[in-house]
């Protein structure tokens, strides 16, 4: 019986990744437009070049349209990741020792990525942070959108203004991730190819616990 060839990035993952890439940019830039109407960091203001929607109304409309795509796509991704075991396979376990070693290597620009199918510890950490930040944006976003209907949630977040600050902070984390993620992908273009075409075939019964 022929064994199924599993590629690093199955097509559902690739599809959801690029949808997420697009809609995240929409959410971030329309969010910057909304932010401009009442800045959270005094003096920090996004000029017309950076904001999606030239004033409040279109920025809001982009944001409240994009939220459906972001939320549903994100939900689909997490569901897929849990149901297929992909999230556990790709992102766990993480050992502190590995994180330290990888950070050291990265700072020395030793980022050559011969085996794309194995994520180093820093990669795993960053992806987990990005996923958590995405979830946080949905939670804090819902709190800001419906502070009366979801008042208990707002209370947990420390109040309406606090929820706004957390929403802004989550954005900053995601933007930081995006910068690092995009830069590293551009520096190792094979990874971009993999996210378009699927990447290398995975060895059967990959055992992440054995390291490497």
């Amino acid at each position, binding site marked *: 019986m022929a064994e199924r060839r599993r590629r690093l990035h199955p097509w559902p993952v690739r599809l959801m990744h690029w949808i997420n890439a697009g809609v995240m940019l929409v959410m971030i830039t329309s969010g910057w437009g909304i932010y*401009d*109407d*009442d*800045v959270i960091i*005094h*003096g*920090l*203001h*996004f*000029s*017309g*070049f*950076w904001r999606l929607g030239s*004033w409040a109304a279109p920025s809001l409309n982009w944001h409240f349209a994009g939220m459906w795509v972001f939320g549903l796509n994100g939900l689909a991704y997490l569901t897929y990741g849990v149901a297929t075991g992909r999230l556990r396979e790709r992102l766990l376990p993480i050992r502190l020792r590995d994180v330290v070693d990888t950070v050291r290597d990265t700072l020395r620009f030793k980022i050559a990525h011969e085996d794309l199918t194995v994520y180093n510890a820093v990669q795993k950490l960053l992806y987990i942070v990005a996923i958590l930040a995405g979830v946080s944006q949905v939670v804090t976003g819902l709190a800001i959108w419906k502070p009366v209907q979801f008042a208990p949630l707002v209370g947990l977040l420390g109040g309406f203004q606090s929820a706004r600050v957390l929403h802004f902070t989550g954005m900053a984390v995601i933007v930081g991730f995006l*910068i690092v993620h995009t*830069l590293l992908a*551009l*520096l190792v273009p094979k990874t971009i190819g993999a996210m378009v075409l699927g990447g290398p075939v995975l060895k059967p019964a990959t055992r992440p616990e054995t390291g490497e």
Partner: protein
Amino acid sequence: MRQLILGLVLAGFATGAAHGQSATPGGMPPPTGMSLAQSAAMRFPQPVRVGDLLHRLVLRPVEAQTILGRVHAVVRDTQGEILIVISYGGFMGFGGRPIAVPADAMALLGEDLEVVAFTPRQLTAFPSFTGHGTTVIPDDTTIKMGLAKPSH
């Protein structure tokens, strides 16, 4: 190649902020020739408790809401004019030197204040406040100050 990409990314982040006033102005300065008292009177002055003004942020009337300083004290001079003493400059409202700005040159903006009659450049030229010839107004005194709407 790597340096080019890094360079482009960094260049892409060099951006100028757009601080222009829009069609819905907020803290507009008084028309030339109009006295501060007259212009303040056009802003529907409302009673405010002096104690509630202390420690408030003082902002530029622009969309970026740049911080000019924080309210340090509210005093009356020998002519009876009310002056707001602001710790001006510094960082995010901390530090800076005290200057006295006429209350008529400022406006209430929610929980903050704005300076509407002087530009930051003009404020920098204000002499440092010494307290000479002024009396502190007690916290429970009510004064009147004009309003502004958010700047866009």
